[in-house]
């Protein structure tokens, strides 16, 4: 399976995963506590700066970012149509800021490091009999599958485009579904073959 984690080193790669996650949680919450367009515009500028400072590391997520931009424009357009310009600005900015922060975390943090933090956060539950190691593994797998959706989609689209000259579009939903369900079998086989009893 492929990954959104960027191999280009950036300054943010060097920060500990826990700190980045904490900052994301804090800023993510703050974004939703304010509804001042000016404040959010400031956040937007900050996010743009962050994105720019990561340099080549963002290359891997540019497609994703573009789709976020389109989504933001759609949302803004909807609210403008409903006659609420302020809400348009606020929701678009929020979406862009929150996504930028999330993407910045994803491309600069190895999923396993994230999972380690989550494992630590869950560790108090171990006393209650929860198998935290398993929960952590499950989170890791979830992140893997999330990326695998995109990787598999790209593979299918590459193959389709090459063979028919057109982009597959929605026609690929059914094959993607089947490929992903089959992926659960392969991953389960590999997991068990390697860790199983």
């Amino acid at each position: 399976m492929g990954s959104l984690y960027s191999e280009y080193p950036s300054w943010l790669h060097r920060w500990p995963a826990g700190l980045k996650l904490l900052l994301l949680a804090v800023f993510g919450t703050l974004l939703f506590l304010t509804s001042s367009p000016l404040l959010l515009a400031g956040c937007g500028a900050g996010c743009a700066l962050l994105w720019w400072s990561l340099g080549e590391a963002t290359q891997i997520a540019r497609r994703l970012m573009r789709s976020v931009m389109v989504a933001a424009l759609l949302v803004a357009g909807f609210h403008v149509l409903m006659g609420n310009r302020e809400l348009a600005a606020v929701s678009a900015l929020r979406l862009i800021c929150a996504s930028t922060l999330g993407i910045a975390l994803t491309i600069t943090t190895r999923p396993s490091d994230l999972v380690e933090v989550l494992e630590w956060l869950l560790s108090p539950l171990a006393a209650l009999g929860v198998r935290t190691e398993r929960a952590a593994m499950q989170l890791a797998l979830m992140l893997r599958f999330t990326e695998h959706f995109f990787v598999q989609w790209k593979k299918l689209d590459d193959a389709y485009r090459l063979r028919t000259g057109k982009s597959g579009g929605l026609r690929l939903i059914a094959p993607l579904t089947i490929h992903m369900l089959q992926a659960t079998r392969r991953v389960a086989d590999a997991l068990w073959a390697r860790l199983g009893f």
Partner: protein
Amino acid sequence: MTTPSHTVSRHGARSMAQVSLFAALMAVMGLIPKIDLPFGVPITIQSLGVMLAGVMLGPWRGLQSMLLFLAAVAVGLPLLSGGRGGIGVFMSPSAGYLVGYALAACIAGAIMAALPQSTPRRTAVSAFVASVLGGLLCLHAFGVLGLMQLAGMNLSQAFKVTLAFVPGDFIKCILCAVIVHTVARGMPDWRFGGRQ
């Protein structure tokens, strides 16, 4: 003999992979834009993910996949539509729906397990029924409770609000049935509703 915590059983491995996949599906659906409605609960495609998780995995794994997803959201990953996450969202008017995600998947799965699945078409019809009962009725019931608790609405107001989502969710039930039909044809050995 006690099993060490870093190993998995065959059944466990399969279950972990499936649970993770549908939690991941929810995360992917979170990237699809939502439509904000004025009362603070968006229209989102994620409720389709809830139906699919229940129908495809059955009650227990469906529930687990939603709990995993909600845990990841709570921890701060921006996985709800519009890139939202964090503990904050469980204080918002949509909190009832979020809790409902887990229970709706569970109920849809239980219903699916009980319905006939002899042919792809019959399986698709069963999936439609299960997603209407679990993914629509049940999810909206929890949503209404949440709106009453957290948005200070009374029952009839909350009911009217949730009605706004019904047409969209009805289409999602149909989509769910179509996807199930495809899978039933392409993977005849898939166990819908987690049947043994």
